[in-house]
């Protein structure tokens, strides 16, 4: 690993915008999103409550957050986090907003960068490079973060190890993560999750994202294909146009030829 991978937190109230930013960050290869939060409460929990996390390097914060009484709740959150660390915050902030009206405020807050919407790949890349170059060396050499998914169980946040995931489902505009014994809401789309989790998770259906390691059986029944997953009786449909690709992927992993991720 030649370049340090930044551990990023994304605080963005809009579903689509959050997914977009996560996809861009993950797609850059320079960052890994360790938590994608819809409001400041979740972000606060994600910062303190995740016992396995060794912290984050950068937080991408939307200025306007739905559900918060203040119009610039994101700025308020940055202030409170900075104050909680006595002005010496161990990670950097990047503000995200549609307008430039907060540019001066951002400068005064001392944020690392200022991303305007709509986001672009190049702009996100240059932002991440800037953040990485400003990072203290001790963090630049730290290990990549543990792979976990932040899910929601009612008002609580649940930190799910990627190895425990049976499947992700998208239904009625929401995403869910299936464990052997539970189902939780996830605040990310399947595309964003897929870009986060890498190639061992396969999109077998428009509404399903499955880790290949969890597949026990590939069923075929009068033209319909299904996957039976380990740890539960979960049956996942496979889209017709993806059957071949899914079978190839399963076969290749079955003979131990799983591609090594670089």
């Amino acid at each position, binding site marked *: 690993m030649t370049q340090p991978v930044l551990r990023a937190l994304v605080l963005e109230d*809009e579903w689509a915008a959050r997914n*977009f*930013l996560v996809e861009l960050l993950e797609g850059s290869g320079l960052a890994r999103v360790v938590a994608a939060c819809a409001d400041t409460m979740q972000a606060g929990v994600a910062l303190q409550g995740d016992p396995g996390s060794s912290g984050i390097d950068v937080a991408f914060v939307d200025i306007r957050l739905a559900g918060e009484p*203040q119009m610039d709740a994101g700025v308020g959150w940055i202030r409170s986090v900075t104050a909680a660390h006595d002005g010496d915050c161990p990670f950097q902030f990047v503000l995200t907003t549609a307008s430039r009206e907060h540019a001066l405020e951002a400068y005064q807050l001392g944020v690392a960068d200022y991303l305007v*919407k*709509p*986001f672009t790949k190049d702009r996100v890349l240059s932002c991440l490079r800037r953040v990485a170059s400003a990072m203290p060396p001790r963090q630049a050499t730290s290990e990549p973060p543990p792979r976990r998914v932040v899910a929601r169980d009612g008002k609580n946040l649940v930190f799910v190890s990627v190895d425990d995931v049976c499947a992700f489902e998208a239904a009625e505009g929401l995403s869910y993560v299936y464990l052997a014994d539970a189902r939780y809401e996830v605040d990310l*789309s399947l595309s*964003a999750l897929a870009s986060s989790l890498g190639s061992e998770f396969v999109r077998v259906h428009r509404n399903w994202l499955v880790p290949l390691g969890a597949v026990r059986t590939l069923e075929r029944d009068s033209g319909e294909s299904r996957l039976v997953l380990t740890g539960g009786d979960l049956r996942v449909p496979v889209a017709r146009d993806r059957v071949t690709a899914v079978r190839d992927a399963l076969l290749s992993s079955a003979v131990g030829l799983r591609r090594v991720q670089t």
Partner: protein
Amino acid sequence: MAAKVSDLGEARARPAELVEGSEHVAEGGAPAKARRRHDGLRASAALPNGLLNTRRLVWFGYVCPIILGAVPMTIRAVTDVAPVWVVVLDWSLCIGTFIAIYASLLRTYRRSLRRRHTLVRTCLDAFITCLVVTLVLNLLRYGVRLAFPHMLLPPEPDEATLTRVLASSISNASIFMVVWGGIFLFPLTYRRAERRRVQVAVARREAEVLRLRAHLDPHFFLNTLNTISGLVTDDPEEARRMIGLLGDLFRDAAHDGGDDVHPLADEIAWLERYAAIHESRHRRMVRFVWDVDERARAERVPRLVLQPLVENAVLHGVLRRRGGGTVRVRARVDGGALVCVVEDDGPGFAPGARRAGAQGLSIVERRLRLFSRDASLSVASEGGVTRVTARLPLAEEARAEIAA
């Protein structure tokens, strides 16, 4: 379109230039001329409005000799046999002629300008007005002089014939019309009408600029584009739907058909698309409920006048509430007025406090006033509900008012 948005943004940043800029559009091909005229109006408005006013100087210069010329006659008459009240009556009729002509000419010119008559038609109207006024007053004087023939100077009773009265009335009317109308009153009323026309054009244009700015709020637009970018990978159907909705909003908001009013049904259709984008962007946070009376749908309202109210209800209302909330849009016909209500269950505001989104509200209020003097806007926040109510007089009444 993007250029338009930035133009509007700059106009907002420099409100002082808004008036100038908007005049360009209002005056079409002759912006420079319009500005000069506008400046001229400002200069004339700055003149001291006392006795030194040119118009009044000329008026006194014209009237005083005539009145002074009547003084010897009056002295002679009083020392003669005529009773004093007759002399006073005669004198009053003489002065009354000037005043009546002055007033009626002013009125005629104003009416002609308001109704956009041609110059020939205006002159004809003015001439007839002068003729009628002088004829009536001269006939009255003729009657007085017939009753008291010894008042006449020199005492030549045969001079005071009906023919003579008619002839002098026509010549008087011509002189009055040419002197007063042609030289002073017509330019005066023309300037006034022009000033008012420019003011109306500026106000209308300003409203247009404000309106466009409100609908094409860059923040809303850019955020929606970002949302669409995010939807592309995961929900292309929704991304396409959003592009379609945004396109419709643009088409209608940038509509340049000239008519500034449209049926409430169109207004609601636009708002429903606007709401759909908010609902899609903030899933489970923003919900809309519509309750529009069938009778109300046909009524005409200023184009997109309700948009800032809905924007406020979303931005300062439900989105500022934990867990989101509901925006209710209601419209009904009630007591000769169209009543449109936009409600939200957001945090509201304390009595006396400045309402968040006050700028949007004042824009709506100004546009309603432009639409009709009887239109009104009220805001109330109580019992966990913030309610903005717009009352607009029904179309017939509104039209009658505009025509008046």
